[in-house]
C-alpha cells in the first residue's frame, strides 16, 4: 500500500471506526478494519499497545527478550507489525471518559482525557461513524480482614507491575483467590525470581471435569495450563484447592496469611486455618468486564456464569445499540484467543456495514465457529470459579469492604439488614460504599453479595457516567469546536 486511507480524506470527516483499547481485541479489530480500507483511530489509555495481556516494558527498558514473560508473543509481534503498516492512527495516552452522539444518524464522539494518567491539560474529542469497545476487564476482589494492608496486591496487579516495571512486590509471595489467572501469575512471579510457597485456589479444579466437551475442543487452553503447571512444578509451588486466605497478619505490612479450607459453598471450615509466612499476598477472583462506556449508552447486559455483568452481543459482535461493537472481555471474560477472534470479527463486521465490504463470508463463518467454541469454554470456566456465598463468613465487622471510603462490613450489613438496602446503589446512598475514587470497582461484587443477604446477588450494573475521573476544566472545554484529534 502506498497511500494510507487517512491521507485521502477530508480532515473534517469523522473516522470510519474508533477502537477503544489496544489490547488483543482492539488490536485485532483495528487491524482487520484498516486492512479492509477503513479509516481507523485507535484510542488507548496506556503509552503502548498490548493491553494487560501483552503488557511489556517501556522501550526505555530496552528488553531484549520481552517474550520471556509471555505466552503467545509472536501473535502480538505480528499484530504490531500489521498495525504499523495499516494506516491506523494510534493515539496513546487517550482515556475515553464518555461516548456521546449528537444526532441519531450522526457520528459517535469519544471524549478523551490525555496524558499518562489523564492529567494533561488537553482534552480531545474523536468522531467516528462506528465504535468498537475493547476496554477489557479489571480484577474482581473479595474483601477479607487485612486486605488493605500494604503488601496485599491484586494478582493481576502484581503481574502487570512485573511485566511492565520489571519489579516484584516482595520476596515470598502467596498467590490466592480463584480463576486460571492465578496459575499464570504464580508462574511468572516464580520465574522472575520470587519464592511462591503456595497458590491457594478457592474452587476445585475437578469442576472442569463437568465440562468435558468444552475442554476437549479447546486444546490450546490445555497446552497453556500445562506450561503454567510445569513452571509451578519446577519452582516447587504448592497448589492448594478448595481453600482461601481468610486473614492477613502484620502491622504496617504483610507478615503472614491464614489459609482455611472451604466447604462447597466457600464457608471456611472451623479449625482448619493455618499460617503461611510471606511478605506479599497477590489475590484476585476472576475478572469484571469494563463496560461503563456501553452501559451509559443503554447497551443490554447479561449475567455471566460467575456473576458479572457483560455486554449482550449479536453474531457479529454488535451490541444492542446500533453502530456500537464490542469484543474481548467486555462480552464476558474469556481470554486472549477469544479476544483476538472477536476483535477480528468485529473489525470485519464494521467494514461490511460501513463500506459495504463483500466476500467476507468464509472468514466470518470461521471466526464465528472459533468464537463460539472459546465462548463455551469461558462459560464453563467461569461457572467453576463462581464465588460461593460462604465467603462472607470470613469478614469481620471491622473489615473495610469499600477501600476508598473505608466503609466496614458492619455498616454495609446494617444498611442491608436494618435499613432495607437490597442493591448496590441503595447501599451506596446509605453508607458511601462505592462512592470513592474507584467508583465501586473494587467493592462492587462484595457489596452486591452483602446486600443480597444470602440470595443470588445482582451483578453491579457497572454504570459510571464518567468512566474515569474528569477535571472540571475538561467539562468546560466540551463546547469548544477545535478539540478533535488532528489527523
Amino acid at each position: 500500500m502506498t497511500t494510507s486511507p487517512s491521507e485521502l480524506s477530508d480532515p473534517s470527516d469523522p473516522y470510519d471506526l474508533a477502537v477503544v483499547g489496544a489490547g488483543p481485541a482492539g488490536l485485532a479489530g483495528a487491524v482487520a478494519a484498516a486492512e479492509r480500507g477503513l479509516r481507523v483511530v485507535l484510542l488507548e489509555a496506556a503509552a503502548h499497545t498490548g493491553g494487560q495481556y501483552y503488557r511489556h516494558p517501556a522501550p526505555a527498558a530496552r528488553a531484549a527478550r520481552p517474550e520471556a514473560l509471555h505466552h503467545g508473543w509472536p501473535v502480538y509481534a505480528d499484530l504490531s507489525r500489521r498495525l504499523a503498516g495499516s494506516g491506523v492512527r494510534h493515539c496513546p495516552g487517550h482515556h475515553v471518559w464518555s461516548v456521546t452522539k449528537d444526532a441519531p444518524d450522526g457520528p459517535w464522539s469519544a471524549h478523551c482525557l490525555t496524558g499518562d494518567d489523564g492529567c494533561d491539560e488537553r482534552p480531545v474529542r474523536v468522531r467516528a461513524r462506528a465504535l468498537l469497545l475493547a476496554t477489557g476487564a479489571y480484577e474482581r476482589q473479595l474483601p477479607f480482614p487485612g486486605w488493605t494492608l500494604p503488601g496485599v496486591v491484586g494478582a493481576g496487579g502484581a503481574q502487570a507491575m512485573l511485566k511492565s516495571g520489571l519489579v516484584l512486590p516482595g520476596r515470598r509471595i502467596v498467590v490466592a483467590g480463584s480463576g486460571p489467572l492465578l496459575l499464570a501469575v504464580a508462574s511468572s512471579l516464580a520465574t522472575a525470581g520470587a519464592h511462591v510457597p503456595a497458590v491457594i485456589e478457592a474452587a476445585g479444579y475437578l469442576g472442569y471435569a463437568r465440562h468435558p466437551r468444552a475442554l476437549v475442543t479447546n486444546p490450546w487452553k490445555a497446552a497453556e495450563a500445562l506450561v503454567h503447571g510445569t513452571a509451578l512444578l519446577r519452582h516447587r509451588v504448592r497448589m492448594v484447592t478448595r481453600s482461601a486466605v481468610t486473614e492477613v497478619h502484620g502491622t504496617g505490612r504483610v507478615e503472614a496469611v491464614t489459609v482455611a479450607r472451604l466447604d462447597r459453598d466457600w464457608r471456611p471450615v472451623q479449625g482448619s486455618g493455618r499460617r503461611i509466612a510471606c511478605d506479599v499476598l497477590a489475590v484476585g477472583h476472576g475478572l469484571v468486564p469494563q463496560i461503563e462506556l456501553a452501559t451509559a449508552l443503554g447497551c443490554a447486559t447479561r449475567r455471566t456464569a460467575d456473576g458479572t455483568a457483560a455486554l449482550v452481543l449479536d453474531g457479529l459482535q454488535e451490541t444492542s445499540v446500533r453502530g456500537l461493537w464490542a469484543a474481548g472481555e467486555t462480552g464476558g471474560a474469556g481470554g486472549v484467543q477469544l479476544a483476538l477472534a472477536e476483535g477480528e470479527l468485529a473489525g470485519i463486521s464494521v467494514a461490511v456495514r460501513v463500506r459495504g465490504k463483500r466476500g467476507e463470508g468464509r472468514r466470518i463463518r470461521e471466526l464465528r465457529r472459533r468464537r463460539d467454541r472459546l465462548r463455551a469454554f469461558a462459560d464453563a470456566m467461569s461457572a467453576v470459579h463462581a464465588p460461593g456465598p460462604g465467603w462472607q463468613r470470613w469478614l469481620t465487622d471491622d473489615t473495610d469492604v469499600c477501600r476508598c471510603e473505608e466503609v466496614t462490613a458492619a455498616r454495609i450489613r446494617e444498611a442491608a439488614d436494618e435499613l432495607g438496602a437490597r442493591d448496590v446503589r441503595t447501599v451506596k446512598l446509605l453508607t458511601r460504599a462505592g462512592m470513592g475514587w474507584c467508583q465501586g470497582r473494587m467493592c462492587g461484587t462484595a457489596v452486591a453479595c452483602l446486600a443480597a443477604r444470602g440470595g443470588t446477588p445482582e451483578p453491579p450494573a457497572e454504570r459510571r457516567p464518567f468512566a474515569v475521573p474528569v477535571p472540571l476544566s475538561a467539562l468546560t472545554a466540551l463546547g469548544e469546536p477545535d478539540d478533535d484529534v488532528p489527523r
Partner: protein
Amino acid sequence: MARTPADLVGAQPGPPFEITFDGRSVTARPGQTVAAALWGAGIMAWRTTRDGGRPRGVFCGIGQCFDCLATVNGRPNRRACLVPARPGDAIVTQEGHGHDHLAV
C-alpha cells in the same frame, strides 16, 4: 536461571537515575513508573487514607483502584502505577485527599 525480572527479559536500559521519596533518594530505572521505582526500593506505601490515616500503595496495578495516589512534584492524586518516573521527580506521601493546602 534468571533471578531478577530484568535479567529474565534481558533488559539493558540506560543508566539509572535518582528520584526522591519523602526527601530520601530512590534509584529508578529508565522505563519504570513511579510505583515500580518505589517497589524496586522496597517501598510499598505512599498514601494515607482520609478517614483512618492508614497506609496504602499499589493494589490493582492497572490504574483502576486509585489506591496508589501520590503527590508527584507538588501535584496530588497522581496514579503512581501510571505515571512514568523522570529524573529528579519528588514523590511525597499523600495524606488524605492531598489538598490540605487549600484548607481555610
